[in-house]
């Protein structure tokens, strides 16, 4: 399998805090790759570095063979990297539909002038993308809330809408930062099913951060463990659950 993403020994610090310390791993195209680790381990910082919000002081981010370390986030989005946030960053005053339409930006062409006239091509484009967005809404089973204002929705639904928005970019690498945090069992199961479906139907490479170890073991192909900004283990789920260092740092702590 070709390498989709290569995180090449990146280090990131904030003042005295070393959030990431020479972290290195490779994500193969088409796999579900999980990153686990205790609170404050540096997982979100890792996603922020991959998507361009943070700039590691050392190391490189290689996406599909090209170095994107110094690329601004909006260009990385256009390359096919999309993400969700641990603490949700939706447009709360807009409808679900509008949130997803906004995410069609990179796939649309209409500029200011043709948009102003709203003739021919601009109108057809608007329509085509509206259809695509409706497909995503159907896929995530959110038809009933498509015209709801996001701010009025429950936390679990917002997480789902955010996944929908990330999908509307039609990414080839999807970064999910704790997509199931704060959900009830039923919502978690739905979310897990959606993640598997996205992977299966669209062949999207998925990088997942999640605290629910059982779930991570179930759905991921490969797992990296970080603690205090350092990668302390990596391997298939079965290997990870046997790894001494991992158990000491993380799994062990979960078990009492």
């Amino acid at each position, binding site marked *: 399998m070709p390498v989709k993403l290569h995180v090449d020994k990146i280090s990131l610090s904030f003042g005295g805090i070393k959030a990431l310390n020479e972290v290195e791993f490779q994500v193969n195209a088409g796999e579900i790759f999980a990153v686990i680790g205790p609170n404050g381990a540096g997982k979100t910082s890792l996603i922020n570095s991959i998507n361009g*919000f943070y700039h590691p002081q050392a190391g490189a981010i290689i996406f599909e063979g090209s170095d994107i370390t110094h690329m601004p986030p909006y260009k990385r989005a256009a390359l096919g990297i999309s993400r969700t946030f641990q603490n949700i960053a*939706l447009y709360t005053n807009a409808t679900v539909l509008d949130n997803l339409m906004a995410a069609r930006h990179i796939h649309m062409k209409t500029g200011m002038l043709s948009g102003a006239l709203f003739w021919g091509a601009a109108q057809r484009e608007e329509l085509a993308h509206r259809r695509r967005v409706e497909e995503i809404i159907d896929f995530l089973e959110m038809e009933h809330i498509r015209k709801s204002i996001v701010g009025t929705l429950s936390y679990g639904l917002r997480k789902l809408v955010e996944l929908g928005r990330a999908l509307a970019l039609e990414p080839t690498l999807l970064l999910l930062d704790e997509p199931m945090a704060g959900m009830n069992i039923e919502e978690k199961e739905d979310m897990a099913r959606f993640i598997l479906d996205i992977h299966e139907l669209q062949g999207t490479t998925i990088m997942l951060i999640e605290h629910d170890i059982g779930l991570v073991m179930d759905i991921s192909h490969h797992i990296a463990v970080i603690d205090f900004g350092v990668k302390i283990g990596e391997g298939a789920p079965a290997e990870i659950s046997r790894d001494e260092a991992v158990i000491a740092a993380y799994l062990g702590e979960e078990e009492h």
Partner: protein
Amino acid sequence: MANIHPAGVFDTTYEQDMSVDRTARDKLWKNLAFVALLLVPLASVSGPLELGWISDQYVGLIARISIFVIAVQGLNILVGYTGQISLGHAAFMAIGAYGSAIMARELGFSFWTALPASALLTGAIGLLFGLPSLRVKGFYLAMATLAAQFIIPWVLRYPLEDLTGGPRPLSVPAPIIGPFVAYADDELTDGEPFAFQAGDPYFVDVISLELTDATAYTVVELVNPAGDVLPYGDVSMTVSRDSAGNITRLTYIASKAGEYQAVVRAEAGGSFKAVVRRSKALSFATDIAMYYIIVPLAVLLMFLARNIIRTRTGRAFVSVRDNDLAAELLGINVFGYKLRAFFLSAVYAGIAGCLLAFERNSLSLYAFELDISIEMLAMLIIGGAGFPLGAMFGVTFIRILQEAFIPFLRPWLADFLPQLFPFVDAVNITSAINPIVFGGALIIFLALEPRGIAHRWEVLKAAWKLRPYAY
């Protein structure tokens, strides 16, 4: 904003769901309103039908409201939709106004080319003053745009004084279409006065003199009905010269009724060939004619803005406003869209400025000071920032307040306010009535309906459409 359907109306296609007018009735109302607006001048006292149903002052009032609706809609794009701030909007209007006036006066541009050219010029300068938005937001950005409000009028007043007239009023020619009907050609001889009659304010006479084969220095004298010799700098006159400085062509638009005279004289011993050609052009020198440029243009620009807002660019603007981090993640070049908003906003300001110049025929820098920038922001807030009709509601409300309501209340306020503030000189109070009422209205809106009239309007419209079911 979720679109609210009238009870019983359901969308069956996405086209229908995306359209601005949901039902045939929505569309009908809008068209009726537009037609009514177009009929106003016809029903006015000096309208061509001489109906006299509406006072002339309303024709000018609606035209001026429309100009400011254009300007404030520009501000709405920047402030309401993109979430940036500008305290320099009036200065951008000044660029449109002085830019188009100078293009018409000095470069011989017609109104029709000066309008888009000055709009683009203003857009480019708006872009320049939008550059600080790369680094700063909110208060600091406000300060950066305030710099525009001080720099631009200063540049117009001092370094460009030769072109703008500095603090003195600058006159601007009326827009014309044409000249397109030539109706007479005559040859002129040395010193022989040539007289012609001009009359119609709409279909004006254009006289153009062509001089060839001059062997000595020649002068051309044009005398208007009042008996004044018109200076070469007159705004209705364009003069071309050859490399030796001799006049080769002179064109004059005679918009005043009466007899004009043209005389060509050569220095002793000189000779020349002069041909005078008279033709007709459609002129927009009157308030009523300008109304038919300004009002449809305002409607068109509102329509274009509405479309920009509901398509890709507008969604990017709103994304930048609501969460710029998330916008970046969606592949939106945040800085690029901020600049687009500054550009578009300045283009609207430039168009409004140009219209103002040609509507008044006379320009003064006092019309573009800081208080006007702030007044436009207040209009936007009162009307509803981030709503498609916010600018229209805000400007109309404030202008009616200023031009109809305050004059009506003035005598009463002049009595009442000095009793309320006995410690202030009564003379000062009377002169402060305007700002007091304006400020009062702003405070009331900020306290009671900070989202503005447009929001109220949408709530009311929704309630009306949902009848007979209240919920």
